């Protein structure tokens, strides 16, 4: 670990979180940098700002993909730690920032930072994912994200009055859609048995499922049960 205060700022702990052990911050940074994707995600930044210009999140938050790329390029582990507390959860992972002329991928860097934050069970990771338990459950258990039956009359008032109309005869509305795979209400589209089993295997084997353990233990338990049960039916043992 570098001994000198890495940073370039007036305050000794300009990046915030002065009480957190710098050794810990540095370890997280090393984890981010050790990811095999990183060499393709960060080259160098010359601060043209195109990633900020195209970033939808930057329009609504004090968020800048340029700062993410810059912090990593500068190996400023204090700042990277700070960004893992807040900034990374403001990214919508749309990857518009791939337009970077240097070939950087700030969104990809954020993906890696998020994975490290989740694996390490950072409080902010829990916080950020709190509101998403249902979505995580849907994705991991069905392979699809928002399902039509989540459209309850009063659930999403900000989605407008049509939601109410649609929710009344949901099944009918869905059947009106041309692709048969969309004639579903409890999943976003129909998912074949084989796909589902493959997905469960992927979630379990890659460690994606265990990532959730530190973030939401209850959710993890339910999902693990669902998956193990289904795989058992297929005679697959993990």
């Amino acid at each position, binding site marked *: 670990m570098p001994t*000198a205060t890495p*940073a*370039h*700022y*007036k305050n000794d702990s*300009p990046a915030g979180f002065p009480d957190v052990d710098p050794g810990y911050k540095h370890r997280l940074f090393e984890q981010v940098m050790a990811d095999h994707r990183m060499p393709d995600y960060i*080259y*160098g*930044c*010359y*601060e043209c700002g195109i990633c900020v210009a195209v970033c939808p999140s930057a329009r609504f938050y004090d968020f800048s993909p*340029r*700062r993410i790329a*810059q*912090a990593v*390029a*500068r*190996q400023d582990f204090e*700042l990277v730690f700070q960004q893992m507390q807040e900034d990374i959860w403001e990214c919508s992972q749309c990857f518009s920032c791939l337009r970077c002329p*240097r070939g950087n991928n700030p969104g990809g860097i954020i993906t890696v930072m998020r994975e490290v934050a989740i694996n390490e069970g950072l409080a902010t990771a829990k916080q950020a994912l709190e509101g998403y338990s249902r979505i995580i459950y849907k994705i991991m258990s069905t392979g699809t994200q928002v399902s039509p039956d989540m459209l309850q009359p009063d659930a999403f008032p900000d989605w407008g009055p049509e939601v109410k109309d649609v929710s009344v005869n949901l099944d009918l509305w869905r059947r009106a859609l041309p692709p048969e795979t969309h004639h579903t209400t409890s999943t976003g589209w129909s998912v074949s048995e084989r796909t589902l089993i493959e997905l469960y295997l992927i979630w379990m084997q890659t460690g994606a499922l265990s990532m959730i353990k530190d973030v939401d233990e209850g959710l993890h338990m339910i999902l693990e049960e669902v998956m193990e049960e289904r795989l058992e039916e297929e005679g697959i043992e993990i």
Partner: protein
Amino acid sequence: MTDKPIVVIGGGPAGISAAQTACDLGAEVVLIEQRGFLGGTPIAENYASLTPHMRSAEEVVGAMVERLTASTSLEVLLDAEVTGLSGEAGAFALDVAAGGAVRTVDCASIVVASGFRHFDPGRETQMYGYYEYPDVIALQDLEAMLKAGDVRRPSNGETPKRLCFIQCVGSRDRHIGNEYCSKVCCGVASKEAIEVREAIPDCEVFIFYIDMRMYGYWESQIYWPAQERHHVQYVKGIVSEVLAKGDKLLVRGEDTTMGRPMETLMDMVVLSVGMEPSAGTRKLAGILGVEQNKYGFIQAANPPLDTVSTSKPGIFAAGAALGPADLEDCASSGAAAAARALSAARMVIGA
């Protein structure tokens, strides 16, 4: 063919290129150099390697000198200074003081390649303390250290652990009067940064800049490798002052990327000084009667496509006497000026 020689004033890269071209085209050439050796600023100021290809300055310039001085149609006057000019294109008479005597050199046309000098950091209007702190040095000082293979803090002889460059010292500054960009310092600083990282792998190297100007291939030849392979830290924002703090240097500025003020400690600070017309260029412009621009460089008379003509027929200029130039510019404009000088001589003869 004209029987009068072509005179080239200045024995740096541009002058050598001009003299070589004129010799190759069959002219008699008199090369006048104020120093006691050929090679110009890269040799006089101990450049270690040349930007961007990083080949040894002594080897590259030495090879130029060797090839030129093998020419049979060349006369070299060292420790020589031009003191007066009379006549006109096709029949100039140049007074040259050398070895305690003044001699008149008759010539058909003249190429001025009297070069630049490094901006004197004592004139900068920030507060970088070049003459105050031993560990504040300039690009050419670091070149000399790199050439000697010994980069250390002048104050205590220790190997630096943190070293930074400050760009645009003496350039792009209305207070100083040098509003122009000196063109090469971004590349040279980046090249030196790479060399420091290679020589001292555990030394962190920073470059504080206004904007990096890496034109053409320098981008991928120097800038990207410096960032991507050598992890030189480029911080956008210029330094306002350098202060002593203990045995370190406190560098104060703004980190504009992160949008906050910045103060950080360094072991060494390297000032990326720009280019100014050399004393010789200023003096020669007066003696020869060629127009200078507001910065004292010789004014190219017909830009943009005629880059080497001066305001006076028969007199051409090349290299950094015309303004900030890299070595490739110098070699190119030297050859162009020689060709133009020769064609001017022939046109006069033919007329």
